[in-house]
């Protein structure tokens, strides 16, 4: 049973936690207690947990290092089973009752890790570029290496079960988007909100206030945290302001588009009780105020990764915000005044500051005086050059250094301590600005990169712009908020004396040994990149910072180098004898912190992933047992198996029904475009290969559309409804593309042609029935049209009444049989289908799907654009010379390309039929075709099988294929060598296998 005494590092009072609400959590199988308001990290520190994981490459013990997004070590495996979440940072997990977490690595445990010993030996064998150097050869060893590395490396594991939670997205629009709710962000949002603008303010933490929540300053006479609370309350009360806490703006994209992830219920438990667990806000903002703040920079010294080495500001935050002191005897190392405030906070918390180790030779000023007055030992002109201890800090090795921070100038002494707080200065959070393509710029005054010029409507306020005082952040926030809102700032701020002395720009702390021999000096904790590693990379000739990054893997972790990158760049600059400004910086890509795939997917998953389009007859198909095939977004009946039937048996039955009696197909999905205007014919002449000038009302014609390169792009039948009125059909998948194509030519090249196009795909439902008995079926339903073969010919259409419904009847055929397509307004589509099925019952009318349609059309050698063609076949390649108009006035789209040398050569691939030598064989679609399978590899390739089916009516397999010079190779034998070793022989033949004279559909 846990007790409060377990929280040995918890202060009796202070902080923003609620001591009346104790919460129990489990870490690595052991129960602990924390309080409402804790993060997992603060609760772990309160309980004296030092080691939270093992490092990536060397398996060194690591402890909590920061307090927010910058944390590189404390990656957790949160929860178990299907609920588990890999790799959230303990510093950003709000504690809830019953929380369970384990270390993401370390075996058998984070405390005792076998890999540490491998790391200790292997470290020398794993220099930067290790992967490139080692795994280049021998090639066959890669599988062995990889298995080893994958097992040893990496962090958390994703669940293999379905995520029980849902995630969603909202599209948001605002006048002013404020990123960050620290002093600058709050001040900006207040101004924009008071100006009446639509404002969104987002902050990753559970409460607004940022650094103010851990500050002891005052703002206009009010305690900083209290001011933050009242500012947040004022914003929350404004109807025009949306306050999003627990919301990380993870990406800043083009034209002021931002992605923000809101963790709606993560603080309550592992899964949401109702609604979505996380929500992405897709925000389009007119103006953006970036008030993302700054992250503290560590210093690079020997063994600086030992548990017990922490960022100075984080130590202060744990004390002031969470009432937790991470150590009892603390050494503060600082290059600037901020470490002094931490030392004062530690002292105020009743713990010992062993010394402030200031790298500056003569620090002076307000805070230094205060530290002296508090009796704290100040060792100016000194640095901690090495942390000592095996699994946690026990001593700090401190030595005097020269003013430049490059040389040790005296004998090191060892100071006993359990915490080293490191203040290396601040790095503005330039990440979001980088996302938009803006390159950070070096600012010498603050020795840091700040966001560079942006092409977006972006304003910077506060620490993100290098303004580190609270009053400066507030004033800048107010100004930028007002600027973004087009108003004047309403408030000015006073925070008392915030004066600080000059900071020293120091990154790598010298050691008594050279970098290559000193104990490891870490730059990037997540990828175990050391100063020595960077030095080696530079020595090997990697000078561009982007190359150094990739060679060493610096900044590649889930923390994206938030703390390590600047130090790495500074070390590179020094090695190369350049300034940091000259060396430059890498830039950051989204996401600022990791975003779950669940949130990325939102609700666009499962059956909502892609719209399923249905025809009016869809319910009938479902009721009658159809299996469905995706055609574009359409669900089309594939075939209708009866009980006990195999697929092939069902297809054979459906095919024979059409050949011998009558079958019915839902053809509603064909694209339909209504074309009106006196230039409609001329337009058709230009976009189709054949002539349309003389097509009379009541007639239909098949057309082929080409792209300008002469290649087949779409096909379909177009009917002349009236002199200036046509109905074009397209392939089911090509409807939208064809309409766009027509519109493009009309709008961009031929606006003078008087023609309008309107999509009527959804307006008309199409029942296509086909077979020798088709006329008898229609005759039962229609008595106002002369259906005789003489009066209503193949490729005619008639307006008539079918089953009492006004319909357009087209006599066109894709099966080779006598066929009618009855088009009715889709509201009556299902009714019409049912009437035809009922009328056909006496003839055994059989519904058939796309697969049977494919077999029937292949028996006739009719192509399917997109299956038998792939954008590389001309009409001539397809054997369709007959459809190319020779005497058209206008040089129709694609025509000129026919005479290009490549298009007109004789050895192009041609579409032909293939008849397998073994009649029982069905060639696999996609099979490669060769002239001689005994040729050594690589053998000559002729083409491939595009369509292949068993033809029940012919009693043998049939195929369509593209074959080089195929039209000149009729009767030749070719071969399909298969992966399983079989070689199938086939004879090249005409693609028309059935009724080559077309007597049946003319019947």
């Amino acid at each position, binding site marked *: 049973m846990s007790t409060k005494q377990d929280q040995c590092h918890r202060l009796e009072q202070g902080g923003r936690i609620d001591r009346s609400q104790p919460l129990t959590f489990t870490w690595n199988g052991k129960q602990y207690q924390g309080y409402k308001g804790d993060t997992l990290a603060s609760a772990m520190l309160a309980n004296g947990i030092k080691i939270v994981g093992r490092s990536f490459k060397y398996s060194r013990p690591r402890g909590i290092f920061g307090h927010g997004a910058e944390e590189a070590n404390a990656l957790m495996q949160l929860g178990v089973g299907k609920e588990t979440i890999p790799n959230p940072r303990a510093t950003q997990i709000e504690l809830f009752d019953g929380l369970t977490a384990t270390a993401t690595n370390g075996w058998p445990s984070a405390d005792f890790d076998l890999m540490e010993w491998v790391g200790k030996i292997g470290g020398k064998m794993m220099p930067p570029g290790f992967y490139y150097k080692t795994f280049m050869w021998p090639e066959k060893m890669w599988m062995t290496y990889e298995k080893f590395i994958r097992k040893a490396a990496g962090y958390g594991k994703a669940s293999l079960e379905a995520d029980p939670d849902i995630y969603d997205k909202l599209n948001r629009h605002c006048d002013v988007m404020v990123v960050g709710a620290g002093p600058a962000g709050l001040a900006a949002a207040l101004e924009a909100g008071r100006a009446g603008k639509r404002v969104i303010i987002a902050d990753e933490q559970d409460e607004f206030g940022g650094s103010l929540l851990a500050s002891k300053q005052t703002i206009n006479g009010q305690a900083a945290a209290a001011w933050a609370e009242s500012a947040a309350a004022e914003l929350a009360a404004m109807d025009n302001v949306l306050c999003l806490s627990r919301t990380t703006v993870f990406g800043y994209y*083009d*034209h*002021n588009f931002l992605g923000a992830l809101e963790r709606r219920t993560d603080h309550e438990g592992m899964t949401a009780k109702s609604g979505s667990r996380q929500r992405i806000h897709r925000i389009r903002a007119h103006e953006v105020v970036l008030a993302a703040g700054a992250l503290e920079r560590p210093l690079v010294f020997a063994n600086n990764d030992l548990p017990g080495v922490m960022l100075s500001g984080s130590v202060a935050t744990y004390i002031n915000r969470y009432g937790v002191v991470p150590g009892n005897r603390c050494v503060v190392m600082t290059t600037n005044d901020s470490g002094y405030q931490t030392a004062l906070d530690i002292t105020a918390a009743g713990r010992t500051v062993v010394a402030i180790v200031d790298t500056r030779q003569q620090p002076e000023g307000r805070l230094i005086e205060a530290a002296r007055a508090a009796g704290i030992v100040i060792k100016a002109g000194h640095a901690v050059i090495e942390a000592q201890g095996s699994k946690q800090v026990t001593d700090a090795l401190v030595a005097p250094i020269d003013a430049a921070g490059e040389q040790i100038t005296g004998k090191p002494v060892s100071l006993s301590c359990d915490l080293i707080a490191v203040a290396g200065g601040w790095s503005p959070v330039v990440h979001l600005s980088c996302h938009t393509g803006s390159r950070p710029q070096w600012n010498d005054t603050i020795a840091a990169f700040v966001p560079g010029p942006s*092409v977006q409507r972006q304003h910077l306020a506060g620490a993100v712009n290098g303004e580190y005082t609270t009053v400066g952040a507030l004033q800048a926030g107010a100004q930028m908020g007002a600027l973004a809102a087009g108003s004047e700032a309403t408030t000015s701020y006073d925070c008392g004396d915030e004066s600080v002395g000059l900071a020293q720009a120091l990154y790598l702390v010298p050691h008594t040994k050279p970098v290559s021999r000193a104990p490891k000096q870490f730059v990037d904790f997540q990828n175990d990149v050391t100063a020595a590693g960077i030095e080696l990379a530079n020595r090997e000739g990697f000078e561009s910072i982007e190359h150094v990054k990739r060679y060493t893997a610096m900044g590649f972790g889930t923390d994206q180098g938030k703390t390590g990158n600047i130090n790495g760049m500074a070390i590179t600059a020094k090695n190369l004898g350049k300034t940091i400004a000259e060396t430059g910086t890498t830039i950051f890509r989204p996401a600022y912190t990791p975003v779950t795939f669940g949130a990325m997917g939102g609700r666009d998953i499962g059956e909502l992933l892609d719209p399923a389009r249905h025809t009016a007859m869809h319910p009938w198909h479902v009721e009658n047992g159809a299996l469905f095939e995706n055609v574009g977004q359409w669900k089309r009946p594939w075939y209708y198996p009866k009980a006990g039937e195999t697929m092939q048996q069902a297809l054979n039955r459906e095919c024979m029904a059409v050949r011998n009696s009558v079958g019915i197909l839902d053809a509603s999905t064909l694209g339909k475009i209504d074309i009106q205007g006196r230039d409609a014919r001329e337009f058709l002449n230009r976009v189709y290969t054949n002539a349309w000038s003389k097509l009379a009302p009541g007639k239909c014609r098949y057309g082929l559309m080409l792209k300008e390169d002469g290649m087949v792009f779409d096909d379909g039948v177009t009917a002349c409804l009236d002199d200036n009125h046509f109905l074009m059909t397209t392939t089911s998948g090509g409807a939208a593309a064809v309409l*766009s194509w027509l*519109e493009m030519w009309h709008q961009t090249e031929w*606006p003078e042609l008087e023609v309008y196009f309107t999509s009527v795909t959804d307006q008309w439902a199409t029942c296509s029935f086909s077979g020798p008995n088709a006329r008898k079926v229609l005759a039962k339903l229609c008595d106002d049209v002369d259906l005789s073969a003489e009066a209503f010919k193949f490729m005619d259409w008639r307006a008539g009444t079918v089953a009492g419904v006004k319909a357009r009847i087209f006599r066109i055929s894709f099966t080779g049989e006598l066929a009618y397509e009855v088009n009715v307004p889709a509201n009556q589509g299902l009714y019409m289908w049912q009437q035809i099925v009922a009328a056909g019952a006496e003839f055994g009318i059989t519904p058939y799907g796309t697969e049977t349609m494919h077999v029937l059309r292949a028996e006739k050698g009719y192509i399917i654009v997109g299956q038998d063609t792939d954008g590389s076949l001309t009409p001539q390649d397809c054997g369709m010379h007959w459809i190319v108009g020779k005497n058209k006035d206008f040089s129709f789209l694609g025509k000129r390309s026919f005479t290009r040398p490549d298009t007109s050569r004789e050895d192009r691939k041609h579409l032909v039929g293939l008849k397998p030598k073994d009649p029982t064989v069905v060639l696999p679609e996609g099979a490669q075709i060769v002239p001689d399978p005994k040729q050594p590899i690589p053998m000559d390739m002729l083409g491939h099988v595009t369509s292949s089916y068993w033809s029940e009516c012919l009693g043998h397999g049939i195929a369509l294929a593209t074959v080089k010079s195929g039209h000149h190779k009729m009767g030749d034998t070719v071969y399909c060598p298969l992966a399983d070793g079989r070689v199938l022989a086939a004879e090249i033949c005409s693609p028309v296998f059935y009724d080559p004279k077309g007597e049946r559909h003319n019947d």
Partner: protein
Amino acid sequence: MLHIYCPYCEEMREEEEFSYAGEAHIARPLDPESLTDAQWGDYVFFRTNPRGLHHEMWNHAAGCRRYFNVTRDTQTYVIHETYKMGEQPSVTGEKP
């Protein structure tokens, strides 16, 4: 995610509503049959693909279905102007 002003709908719309339609101001030759293969090939296959200012066509596919022109910087994605079909760009990168 681009934010594009449709010159026909006369307001800003989200990129989801649009589709890209290639380089603008490439007129179809009036008499293709009189062109050499090289000239025709140039028209069919070759595009400028610049780094920087680019005049391109977009289609307001989910909106008014009009094609229009956009002057966009391919490096920064800044859209300098959009203009109707048949109009000429005012931002060309050339000094006046």
